């Protein structure tokens, strides 16, 4: 099956770990996204916990959950532990079931208002749900 690149849907960091994000998205749906499409995942702004210069693997962490990010294509970005980063990329599931985000883009968003960011995401989801509902009626 040919793989289609679709848009960088903003997903909850926890969704990547198949816990769900309150949108009713299940582990199966999430897995289907990954299998059927070369889905671009737009990870939320999250703090950098570790970075290896040798492997270009960054580890971002939020509330005990961690995600590895392969940053080999992001040569111009300076990785500083404790800074907040936002990545867009393809999520690859390794044979050992470990998820690695192959980053296409990344940026430092130090100074971002995270409370406002999450509130705006909630409003967006309500707005999108209403919009979709109206579109189908």
């Amino acid at each position: 099956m040919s793989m289609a690149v679709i848009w960088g849907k903003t997903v909850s960091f926890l969704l990547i770990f198949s816990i769900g994000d309150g949108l009713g998205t299940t582990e199966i749906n999430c897995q289907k996204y990954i299998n059927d499409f070369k889905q671009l995942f737009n990870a939320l702004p999250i703090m950098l916990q570790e970075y290896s210069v040798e492997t270009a693997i960054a580890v971002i962490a939020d509330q005990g959950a961690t995600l590895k990010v392969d940053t080999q294509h992001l040569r111009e970005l300076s990785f500083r532990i404790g800074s907040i980063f936002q990545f867009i990329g393809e999520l690859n599931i390794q044979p050992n079931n470990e998820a690695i985000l192959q980053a296409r883009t990344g940026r430092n968003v130090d100074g971002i208002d995270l409370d406002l960011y999450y509130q705006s995401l909630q409003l967006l989801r309500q707005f999108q749900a209403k919009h979709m509902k109206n579109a189908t009626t």
Partner: protein
Amino acid sequence: MDQQPPSLLHIHVKLLGFSLHSITPWPNNPSIFYLNGKRISRVEILGVVTSRDYKPNKFLRFTLDDGTHSITCILWLNHLTSPFFASRQPATLRVISDLAKCFADDIQFGKVARVRGRVSSYRGDLQVTVSDVVIERDPDAETLHRLDCISLGRRCYFG
């Protein structure tokens, strides 16, 4: 007498990607689209540059991703060679051409860009023909644009 709502036809309508992809073409004019029954032709969008296809002196095609959808944008760079612009003043064309080249340099992978332009359809897909680009450095720019779009959507576009 009821006051007519202001027309959206000649203003840049702030839209999120998923809303932009919900618009439908107006049958009588390929440059006009329907957004929830209202006619629009210009949009303002904001997102991360996730692809970039550069043809020097021809065009820069790129995509913006705002987390709800990706949007294809085309920035023309052929103002000095295309017969389409032949009727314009040469001095004006040089200014427009130089400005377009500056925009093309600004549009780099991973940057957050605010783009204004005309909506058009190319081979059945929507695209935005770019007229103006601003690179955003404020880390809250995406959040504020999202809130603007939601507020305007509720009050003006979908209300």
